[in-house]
């Protein structure tokens, strides 16, 4: 029973929208039917595109050892650290707010501030599964152009943030992370 309630809660917005569409169809059949067929078309498209991307995502998650990589992202990590921050961020799954708890763990493990910000940037924009989706929907040109600007942009923002905050302020952020309960 509880399990069903949980599922119901997860789908509450969908159920609400579906009922709204139903009511709309009663009063404005033309608009309702047109919307419904557009939805069905979009969903079947997505269901064709999604499976390989999610399988790749799962495989990456299992085979890429996050723990060992974090070790090489510390204070003197140089270009290797930047590279790893990009890789870890790009192969992650989930929305941006899912990155914050991971970032807290990184801070506890002594990951350098700029690498931390690059990781956040990569998580938000250069994610591989997202890129695959983007290529399919927006075309190669759009996706690759965005990627080409985003990589230097993310690094630039990371270094800018490092400049705009004083050493003390950054230390404070790290200290705050120490006291957070994560994972």
């Amino acid at each position, binding site marked *: 029973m509880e399990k069903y309630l949980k599922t119901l809660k997860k789908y509450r917005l969908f159920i609400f929208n579906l009922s709204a569409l139903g009511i709309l169809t009663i009063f404005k059949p033309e608009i309702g039917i047109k919307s*419904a067929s557009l939805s069905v078309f979009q969903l079947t498209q997505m269901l064709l595109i999604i499976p390989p991307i999610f399988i790749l995502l799962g495989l990456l998650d299992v085979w890429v050892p996050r723990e060992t990589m974090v070790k090489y992202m510390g204070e003197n990590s140089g270009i290797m650290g930047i590279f790893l921050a990009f890789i870890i961020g790009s192969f992650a799954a989930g929305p941006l707010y899912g990155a914050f708890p991971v970032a807290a763990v990184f801070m506890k493990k002594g990951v350098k501030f700029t690498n931390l910000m690059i990781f956040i940037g990569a998580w*938000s924009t250069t994610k591989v599964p997202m890129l695959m*989706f*983007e290529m399919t929907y927006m075309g190669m040109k759009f996706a690759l152009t965005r990627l080409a*600007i985003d990589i230097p942009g993310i690094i630039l923002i990371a270094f800018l*943030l490092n400049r705009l905050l004083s050493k003390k302020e950054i230390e404070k952020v790290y200290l705050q992370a120490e006291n957070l309960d994560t994972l």
Partner: protein
Amino acid sequence: MDIQTYLFYILAFIAFFISFLKDKKKTKAALKKAWKSFENLLPQLLAVVLLISVLLTVVNTDVISQLIGKNSGWIGVILSGLVGAITLIPPFVAFPTAAMLLDAGAGFMQIGAFISSLTMVGIVTIPMEMNFFGKKLTLLRNMLAFIFSFFVAFIISLVVAS
């Protein structure tokens, strides 16, 4: 299906095959994870697709191209950037939405701003981000990312729209 989709199927199949040969347990765990991420995405996906479909049916193409079309200029870009910064749509839903909007008359530059600010800026999640990064870092990060979105939009308009 287009070429990219076929390519991803081939890639996924090869990766799955190699992984399976190397370690059956890990491969099973990977599939489980894949299914779980899909299951987590599904409710939002269904809800947003319905909403956008109704919206696109009701709001006609003229209105969309007037608001965020090619000729809406920077006002359209700022508008789409703001919408992207405020809304919390997962990228997997955002790209189909963006493609639908493009079909309905939106401009590439405007959609570029929408996608960029959507992925990098999260106004709704700022309180949550502050818990982890503090006030100053959170606000600065979101501001810089927001400004950067317009730069990305501009370059995209130069490269893609031409």
